């Protein structure tokens, strides 16, 4: 018996041939659906899952806020507050702010925007935003006096009201309808009616997959040219779709192949692929980048001792950390200003401990002086966030070289953010140190900067510095009436924060975006926005 093949053994059956023929006909008869020329398809830095830009400070939700909501005030490229939904007047004594809504403001359901909506939105914002919480301690009343006028009365001077209301990041003053803004501050909103330049298409929203925004035809933009979040928000496209792509290589392939018009963040190691494509512009859109920083826990030994905190700062150096994180000198800068470099309050006051680092010998001497007993530093390392993986690894090495015992524990980001909320001792689930990143507008003043809060276990940010002097200086800053005085106090705050080691800035970096050459006139600012931009046919 032969086992050699015969011609008949694999002759295609009639059924198979019919199926192949049918497939060919089907393929020939159907073609891909036409792509809408006025749709921008963008891959943002993350998928959007939380749709309430007041309950969270997540950047993607803030970006969503700029799509569908308008802000009470805007901030221009000179970092000055400007009218957006409202203009304002300040009384001579500086205690009364009168906001007047401009004409033509409408909610997406057609109802007019009123001052009551503004009051309710500001009150909700005041419960969540750190700077606003500080401001509201000085507020006597906030009321709508008619449909277009809201009046804020202060009981004591607070000269940072307009800057807080105009800030582009953290929690901007997104104005929501009163019925939505009355949602308790700890509860997520479920009504996405805004008055902004785009409408959220709820029916097409798939969390973790895509979010779709269509042009708000009824939006009346201001007449001034756009400048950051101020000026006219003129929408020139019909639709913007944010596509979530969990794999960066896929996103890079997609923008390189023209399937995506905008990739918000290009990984540094994949830049050469996109830079060689003439149909793409690869550039840093935001003039201000990110600050990366380490935070120490003041509650647990050994960092409950200021000398040991200072030794940790002396042990660290910015350049090696930035080299591991970014690698490309074009996109990284050493910077000792806690307010970010190139900002109005930027200063080098007190920064020599970190800017001259690493200084392991000085750190060792300080550790000896403090009587460091070798207590391990529990350093948390997130393994699933590319922008945060390198800092702890380099820092651990630098700390060890200075004589610290370091227990670096890798974990996912979700575990880290849960653990960092624990005020318990290390042996019971607490921690000593972690790193995170901020965009510069989130740290650019003593009021905005979340770390510069000395409220201890009750009010301070994770790490919980109990530092009454810091809070006194912040209040002094808020009450200062002229800019030179504010700058002087900001420098004093930073000098003090370095002395007590409130936190350790370990440098700045910028992330380039990839933009199709079909897109023109994007507004260059720290927040990616889709007004003003045009798309060629």
């Amino acid at each position, binding site marked *: 018996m032969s086992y050699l093949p015969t011609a008949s053994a694999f002759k295609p059956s009639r059924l198979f041939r019919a199926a192949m023929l049918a497939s060919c006909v089907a393929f020939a008869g159907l073609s891909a659906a036409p792509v809408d020329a006025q749709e921008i398809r963008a891959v943002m830095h993350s998928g959007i*899952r939380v749709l309430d830009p007041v309950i969270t400070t997540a950047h993607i939700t803030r970006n969503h806020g700029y799509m569908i909501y308008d802000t009470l005030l805007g901030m221009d490229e000179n970092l000055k507050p400007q009218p957006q939904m409202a203009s304002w007047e300040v009384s001579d004594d500086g205690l009364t702010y009168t906001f007047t809504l401009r004409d033509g403001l409408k909610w997406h359901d057609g109802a007019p925007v009123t001052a009551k909506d503004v009051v309710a939105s500001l009150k909700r914002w005041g419960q969540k935003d750190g700077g606003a919480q500080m401001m509201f301690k000085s507020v006597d009343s906030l009321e709508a006096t008619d449909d277009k006028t809201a009046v804020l009365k202060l009981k004591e001077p607070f000269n940072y009201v307009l800057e807080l209301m105009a800030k582009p990041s953290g929690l901007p003053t997104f104005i929501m309808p009163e019925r939505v803004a009355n949602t308790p501050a700890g509860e997520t909103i479920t009504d996405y009616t805004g008055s902004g330049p785009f409408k959220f298409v709820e029916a097409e929203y798939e969390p973790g997959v895509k979010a779709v925004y269509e042009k708000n035809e009824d939006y009346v933009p201001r007449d001034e040219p756009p400048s950051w979040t101020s000026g006219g928000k003129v929408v020139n496209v019909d639709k913007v779709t944010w596509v979530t792509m969990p794999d960066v290589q896929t996103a890079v392939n997609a923008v390189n192949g023209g399937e995506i018009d905008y990739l918000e963040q290009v990984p540094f190691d994949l830049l050469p692929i996109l830079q060689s494509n003439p149909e793409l512009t690869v550039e840093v859109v935001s003039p201000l980048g990110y600050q990366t920083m380490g935070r120490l826990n003041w509650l647990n030994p050994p960092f409950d001792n200021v000398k040991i905190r200072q030794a940790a700062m002396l042990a660290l150096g910015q350049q090696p950390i930035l080299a591991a994180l970014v690698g490309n000198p074009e996109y990284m800068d050493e910077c000792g200003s806690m307010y970010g470099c190139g900002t109005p309050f930027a200063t080098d006051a007190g920064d020599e401990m970190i800017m001259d680092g690493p200084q392991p010998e000085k750190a060792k001497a300080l550790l000896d002086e403090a009587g460091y007993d070798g207590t391990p530093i529990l350093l948390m390392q997130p393994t699933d966030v590319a922008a945060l993986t390198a800092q702890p690894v380099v820092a651990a090495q630098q700390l060890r070289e200075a004589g610290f015992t370091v227990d670096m524990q890798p974990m996912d980001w979700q575990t880290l953010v849960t653990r960092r909320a624990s005020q318990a001792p290390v042996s019971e689930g607490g921690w000593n140190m972690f790193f995170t990143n901020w965009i510069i507008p989130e740290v650019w003043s003593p009021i905005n900067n*979340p770390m510069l809060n000395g409220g201890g276990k009750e009010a301070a940010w994770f790490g919980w510095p109990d530092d009454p002097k810091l809070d006194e200086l912040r209040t002094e800053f808020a009450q200062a009436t002229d800019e030179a005085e504010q700058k002087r106090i900001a420098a004093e705050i930073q000098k003090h924060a370095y002395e007590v080691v409130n936190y350790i800035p370990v440098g700045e970096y910028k992330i380039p975006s990839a933009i199709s050459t079909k897109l023109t006139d994007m507004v260059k600012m720290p927040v990616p926005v889709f007004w003003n931009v045009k798309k060629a046919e």
Partner: protein
Amino acid sequence: MLAYIIRRILASIPVMIVVALFVFLLLRLTPGDPAAIIAGDMATPAQLEQIRQNLGLNEPLVTQFITWSGQLLSGDFGRSLISKTPVLTLIHQRLEPTLSLAIVTMLFTLLLSIPMGVVAAWRHGTLTDSAIMAISVLGFSIPVFVTGYILIQIFAIDMRVFPIQGFRSIFDGFWPFFERIVLPALTLATIYIALIARMTRAAMLDVLGEDYIRTARAKGLSERIVLFRHALRNAAVPILTVVGTGFALMISGVVVTESVFNLPGLGRLTVDAILARDYPVIQALILLTSGIYVVINLLIDISYAFMDPRIRY
């Protein structure tokens, strides 16, 4: 047979209850806090506490379990803690890409692997056999993301025959659907082709030595009929088992393939939910996966009876 099916379905109920309890407890004992994901980086401990309170995460575990079980019994899987979208809506949105990928992958797999296995067994010990087995080992050994990127580079970037990424529903037209599913399905199929081709070859080798095959050939039947009607049908039982469990595995989500080709399937939903500690979504997905395994195993068992008349229930 009907009594057997009813008995099997009833037997699966305690299994599902145990799965539900296990998943519930496992998730609550894993470190993580959905409130921290919702609140973002600037939240203070007091703000986190407020959100936790609103989500009901501060309730005792027993209360939380009773609430969730009560909802399940009334067919309500709850809402995502993070996006507030009903869990069933989320699963419904993700089911089509996953099912499409699983079905097309299985079609490619069956079309290629069974003939490969049959030929390898038929040409046992020859160069053809060795070549087919070498291809199988290669297919099984290369990680899917490598295969995926290679296929994307060749067919989507260099030749521009297919799109790089994305998914379109079959209801938008066959070609838009097919051109986006073909590369991920081929990628995933490489593993299953390797697995099923080897399984087919082994089962066929057992059968080809049987007396009834010699008898069939002695009767003068063509090789095609001997191989596919007499031998393959008798070798089908183990092959069916692998096909069935492979299919269940694909429906429960293949996150790497889904990520590489940006398919919004159940695998990605599962990973996203786990990373965000989105308890209701994870619980529903694991229950769904368990249910799929129960049903597919039942279908496999039933199909044995059709493939092998000696099997009776």
